[in-house]
């Protein structure tokens, strides 16, 4: 079966539909487009696809369009959509699954700063066991090029003792590394 898209006719990729359902544990086919999710979405105006449209596109198997979209990255995971869905679809879990698939398939993130922030945050956790906000933010600033943003507030926070100068490293770092290594391996577990 084909679907007409802006780029011309496309074959439905139902493997994609199944894969998203499996990863998220959510019944995507239960969505009947009432749009309650999108009407309560706080960040609807910042993505290019509405929440209900994301579900429709999964039903149609429009994998490429979704994995490269901004919408999956600007989703802030507030769970408002899922709490209000009359069919009980946890759309935040669906968004998590879509981002994970985009990363695994090496698709360039639709919002590269957001993905970069997540990477800097997790690098800090991986090396220290806890987040060190000061060094994590500095790394993000250097890599993103947004060096001068928030300098004033950064200094204010530092003077108030809200940005610890030195990281607090935990003794159970070996276990933290083991979790990271296990999570990187796609084959074991879910």
């Amino acid at each position, binding site marked *: 079966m084909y679907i007409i898209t802006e780029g011309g006719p496309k074959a439905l990729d139902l493997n994609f539909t199944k894969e998203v359902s499996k*990863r998220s544990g959510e019944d995507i086919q239960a969505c009947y487009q009432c749009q309650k999710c999108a009407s309560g979405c*706080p*960040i609807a105006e*910042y993505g290019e696809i509405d929440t209900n449209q994301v579900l429709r596109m999964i039903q149609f198997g429009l994998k490429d369009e979704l994995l490269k979209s901004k919408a999956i990255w*600007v989703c*802030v*995971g*507030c*769970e*408002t959509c*899922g*709490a209000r869905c009359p069919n009980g679809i*946890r759309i*935040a879990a669906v968004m*998590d*699954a879509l*981002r*994970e698939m985009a*990363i695994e398939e090496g698709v360039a993130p639709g*919002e590269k*700063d*957001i*993905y*970069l*922030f*997540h*990477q800097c*945050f*997790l690098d800090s*956790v991986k090396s220290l*066991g*806890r*987040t*060190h*906000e*000061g060094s994590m933010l500095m790394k*993000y600033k250097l890599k*993103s090029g947004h060096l001068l*943003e*928030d300098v004033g*507030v950064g200094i*204010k*926070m530092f003077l*108030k*003792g*809200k*940005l*610890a100068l030195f990281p*607090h490293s*935990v003794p*159970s770092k070996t*276990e*933290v590394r083991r*979790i*990271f290594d*296990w*999570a990187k391996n796609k084959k*074991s*577990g*879910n």
Partner: protein
Amino acid sequence: MKLAYYPGCSLEATAKEFDSSVRAVSKALDIELVEIPEWTCCGATSAHATNHKLSIGLPALTIKQIQNLGLDCVVPCSACFNRLKTTEYQMIHDAEIRQEMEKVLNFKYDGQPRVYDLLAYFVEKIGIKNISQKVQKPLKGLKIACYYGCLSVRPGHITEIDSTENPMQMDNLLKALGATPINWSYKVDCCGAGHSVSKPAMVTNLSGNILAKAREAGADAVVNSCPLCQTNLEMRRPQGEDIPVFFFTELMGLALGLPEAGNWWSKHLVDPSKVANAIQAG
């Protein structure tokens, strides 16, 4: 009474006043907090937004340590609470995940739920009546907008809160402390959360809107229970907006007449001392 305590990374840095007030208030309520000795980061939004296994694995490490302590665990940070509770829920309800975590972390999970949101624990387990009996300086005349945000509230099957649209725990607690919680429609709206650094303009719009609606409804201050909401509501706000934002434990400290309360205000990015002093002066 002894409780395990998971502060979370923010309470060691940007939300130090939350940590100090949690410790002071717990002591005043005769609760001995035992900080989990080797607690590690819950992974926060960044783990669940990018890697499902990591989002379960990191909190599971802490759940193992909570089990070793054999105590109920209170978590002040909404995001940490949400991640730990989600993992606990999955380990209780999904045998496959539980077995996988037991194998990776080399322990046997006893299936006993122990993770509590600090606010919910105070309200439900310690009890509003018991807390109100300790009030020395009622928060008279303080009109307050109780802001719950997202992660202590949703999803409801994980958080087990009274309502995902109109929760009342914080309102009832503040009322018992002598304050007047206002009715407003934005108590569970999102502040922009983890996008604060990567999408600051978006977060300023979302947080600024919440503050504007609190003010419009007649609030003197906003009270909340999440370190990230606190940072966003103080740091990401339109110029000229000066409504103060408190952690609920800070207002508990004031009402319980704790001398430490005066030390917390200087840690805020938006000075709340005018409102705090007005309450203290009665």
